[in-house]
């Protein structure tokens, strides 16, 4: 699996979790006991037992601001076969989104996840649409089985930061 993802993702692409502005991260309709950090934070997300679960119905709305401008290349969403997410819509630079206005804007990209995707195969996005991303909104519209609860084990964002395209910035990140 790791070999597969490594081959699918270009060498220059890095895991963007280091550039997430955690103080601004928001997830709507998450269950209080199974919250977003379980799926998004390094360490927690590697554990398949720690899940992000939806609460009132199957939809989830995740807002992720970044500390700097990034380019988004690919997305990994891992989940169980039954309750894993199916239709995922991505919006770049849309703040203050809610379930009520999620259909008011055209998504930057829409992905329908397959079984392979749920096991960890990255979904390559329309790269040109995500060249200048300050914040990303992930809207999980439904899940594979149509049940009331959606479960997500892992969310990984691959891309590059605009600054780290030059080598100086890249070194600075590696120092951490």
């Amino acid at each position, binding site marked *: 699996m790791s070999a597969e993802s490594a081959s699918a993702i270009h060498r220059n692409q890095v895991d963007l979790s280091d550039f997430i502005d955690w*103080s*601004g*991260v*928001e997830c*709507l*309709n*998450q269950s*209080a*006991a199974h919250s977003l950090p379980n799926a998004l934070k390094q360490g927690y997300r590697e554990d398949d037992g720690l899940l992000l679960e939806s*609460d*009132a*119905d199957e*939809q989830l709305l995740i*807002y992720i601001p970044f500390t700097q401008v990034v380019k988004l290349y690919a997305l990994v969403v891992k989940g169980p076969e039954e309750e894993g997410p199916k239709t995922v819509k991505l919006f770049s630079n849309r703040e*203050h989104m*809610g*379930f*009520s206005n999620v259909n008011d804007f055209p998504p930057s990209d829409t992905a329908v996840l397959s079984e392979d995707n749920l096991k960890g195969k990255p979904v390559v996005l329309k790269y040109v649409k995500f060249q200048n991303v300050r914040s990303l909104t992930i809207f999980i519209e439904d899940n594979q089985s149509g049940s009331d609860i959606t479960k997500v084990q892992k969310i990984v964002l691959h891309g590059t930061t605009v600054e780290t395209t030059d080598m100086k910035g890249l070194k600075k990140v590696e120092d951490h």
Partner: protein
Amino acid sequence: MVLEATMICIDNSEWMRNGDYSPSRFQAQADAVNLICGAKTQSNPENTVGVLTMAGKGVRVLVTPTSDLGKILACMHGLEIGGEMNLAAGIQVAQLALKHRQNKKQQQRIIVFAGSPIKHDKKLLEMIGRKLKKNSVALDIVDFGEEDEGKPEKLEALLAAVNNNDTSHIVHVPPSPNALSDVLISTPIFTGDGEGGSGYAAAAAAAAAVSGFDLGVDPSLDPELALALRVSMEEERARQEAAAKKAAEEAAKPEKGGEQQPSSQDATMTEGASGSASEADNKKDDLMDDENALLQQALAMSMDDTTSGHDVRDTDMSEAATDDPDLALALQLSVQEGDKDSSGQTDMSKLLADQSFVSSIIASLPGVDPNDPSVKDLLASMQNQSQQKKDEDKGPNEEEKQ
């Protein structure tokens, strides 16, 4: 220390003019809002509170969520009462205001003061509730004021749709001499979910409203005692609520049964009271107004109680009349006469018709001259009255008793 953004929805409909919560429903509500704002902003420096009104021309946001307590308090002045409350719109506007909060880390909470009847369907409220839940908004409801049919159920349904891990609460506050804000102090709406330590919240309460804390204990010095007091207050409040509910149910029951009862008892009481009323009039002409008011009250009480049966009526009446022995005597007389047999009313009227008896009573009263012309006139007119009344009240089957 919950980091929270709160929107408070105020009910400023016409129903808020009622004075059953001192000094008025609206003022009581304003006090409670001030108290909650103080507590919220002090429990965490980054907490923000906003205020909107649900009635009037439409839902109006007075302050968007801010941590500036002065701004919040200032907006509460000069609010106009008018129109009807639109709960659904109010909650949705509040949710919109919370959605655009600056600090996304803040939990969202809406506090609704619902003092007027709710015209919306239960279904609509539940739908709004689910929407709030989906958007991770907690909802606190203060149910006070109007107690029309179905209001508590609607609010409970709304709360049930929102509630997630017991973060939302509802408080029913029946009218009582205690200020609305004092009642709220002991509730989870005010103290939060108890995460920050109740003593802390109580201290905030004391700071926010200097006279607000009436337990006589400084909660910052002895948080355990404060907690114990708060718990007992909560229990007492729950007990009172239950008692009020029970009383309301009991009052509803006999009313239905009582309506079918024959009206002969009512007639007895009317005559008895008119007799005693005229005696009282004779006795104290100068105090007539006060006396009349008292009598009216006693009469009303006894009339009410006839519906719930003899025993209750008798005891109630004696209680009502303890501070006026003459009145007690008169009432007792009328009741006893009424109880002796079914023709009690005739006896009573006869008794009153007997001028010598009445004048002997009047003569025995201190400070009343039976020969006074005004008293004589009154007696004469009273006799006529009772005669007329007797004729009216009598059924044809009782004619032989006249």
